[in-house]
């Protein structure tokens, strides 16, 4: 059975210790007395020593992490594939502990990084009320956590046998993106239908005039977005520490499908380009992505983005905001409907729904028609 190795008490008055080092890795075999790590307080540094022979099944802490005295640092077992309990339910010698936590209590223990074994249960099972009573008795309130300031909480492994695997760079990038979207942006979404014919006609005329083989429809729409980014700086900005960070360049992110992967490629300094230069630059970037030769500067630094799922015939997709951007446009054109959809995921900390609707309306018309519409609007204002 897996056995926990817990954080030692360094000083009687210190409830927490800081992890200084981890000297083993998962799968290592250690002997009784081996030093497996070290922790410190303001006053002392002590080694953490294995109390039995065994394989390191799991490590529940990391260097520089502040952990509670008595919380589990390592799990050791006789065999390398022994399962580790989801939550340590009892600790030998803990006062008055014993009841298995309820689901809500287990979630609260995890949220607050508490050891169930230290908290007495009033009934057969440990409840949220027991934890709150224990916190109150110890003079602690329940910490307030907000999404923007949420602390990292180590996740327990599922109770089903399995193994941890490293993410590919692409999967890690996706995780980073969705984590930023979840933890930082106040993400909202809205969309409008538009008539795709004017844009299609505009793209067909452009392709004929420029003798292009590939339809320039999506590149022209992305270029229009870049122009809007130059004209309306708030869509080309983000929030950093409660202040607006206004980007100087418009680095246009454009999603490119390569096999099963969706890359966010980036055309930098789009604000200095005309349509022809932008289409050429985007074509180069797309080819680099497809050849698996996307250099870092073409795969990062987007300040404003465009994504189309028209090729998959979807009627709606709600994209995740690329990190530190306030707007990504989602384009869809379901076949056979004669309609198309422009959607926008946006960071409501910086953009209002009104701002985004104005962008979508402007983007729904090719440049000449948009100019005429603007003229009409100005005329009506007088």
């Amino acid at each position: 059975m897996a056995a926990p190795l817990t954080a030692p008490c360094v000083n009687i008055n210190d409830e927490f210790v800081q992890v200084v080092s981890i000297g083993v890795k998962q799968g290592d075999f250690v002997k009784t007395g081996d030093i497996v790590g070290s922790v410190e307080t303001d006053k002392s540094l002590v080694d953490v020593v294995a109390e039995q022979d065994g394989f390191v099944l799991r490590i529940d802490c990391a260097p520089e992490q502040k952990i509670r005295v008595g919380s589990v640092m390592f799990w050791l077992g006789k065999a390398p594939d022994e399962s580790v309990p989801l939550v340590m339910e009892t600790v030998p010698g803990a006062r008055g502990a014993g009841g298995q936590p309820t689901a809500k209590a287990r979630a609260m223990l995890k949220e607050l990084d508490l050891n169930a074994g230290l908290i007495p249960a009033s009934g057969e099972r440990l409840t949220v009320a027991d934890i709150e009573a224990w916190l109150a008795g110890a003079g602690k309130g329940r910490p307030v956590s907000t999404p923007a300031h949420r602390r990292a909480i180590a996740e327990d492994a599922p109770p089903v046998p399995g193994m941890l695997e490293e993410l590919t760079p692409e999967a890690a990038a996706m995780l980073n993106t969705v984590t930023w979207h979840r933890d930082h942006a106040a993400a909202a979404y809205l969309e409008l239908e538009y008539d795709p014919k004017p844009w299609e006609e505009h793209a067909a005329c452009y392709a004929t005039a420029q003798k292009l083989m590939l339809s320039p429809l999506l590149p022209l729409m992305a270029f229009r977005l870049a122009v809007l980014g130059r004209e309306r700086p708030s869509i080309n900005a983000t929030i950093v520490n409660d202040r607006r960070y206004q980007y100087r360049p418009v680095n246009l992110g454009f999603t490119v499908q390569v096999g099963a992967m969706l890359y966010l490629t980036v055309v930098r300094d789009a604000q200095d380009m005309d349509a022809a230069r932008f289409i050429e630059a985007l074509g180069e970037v797309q080819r680099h992505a497809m050849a698996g030769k996307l250099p870092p500067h073409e795969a990062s630094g987007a300040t404003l983005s465009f994504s189309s799922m028209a090729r998959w015939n979807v009627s709606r997709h709600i994209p995740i905001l690329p990190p530190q951007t306030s707007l990504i446009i989602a384009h869809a054109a379901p076949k056979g409907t004669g309609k198309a959809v422009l959607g926008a995921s946006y960071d409501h900390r910086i953009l209002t729904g009104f701002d985004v609707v104005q962008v979508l309306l402007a983007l729904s018309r090719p440049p000449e028609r948009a100019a005429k519409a603007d003229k009409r609007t100005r005329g009506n204002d007088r």
Partner: protein
Amino acid sequence: MNLNRDEIKAALRAKVVELAKALDMDASGVADDDVLPATGLLDSNAILELVVWYETTYDFPIKQEEINIDNLGSINAMADFLLSRKR
């Protein structure tokens, strides 16, 4: 690398069929002179994937301005363009 015209065309056709299949399209009947962007079998992204595969497979770098109907618009055009550049 074998630069037999018929083999190049067969390889191109197989790639077109593969790329179309990913878009839920059947390109098995594509003719050598069909203008690929006009067939509706491949969208721009897929045609660009075809071009990149063609460049990589035949070690044949293509400039952006060379991506046009005359050079790459059909299976015949692609085979001819490759052979003209490799001679």
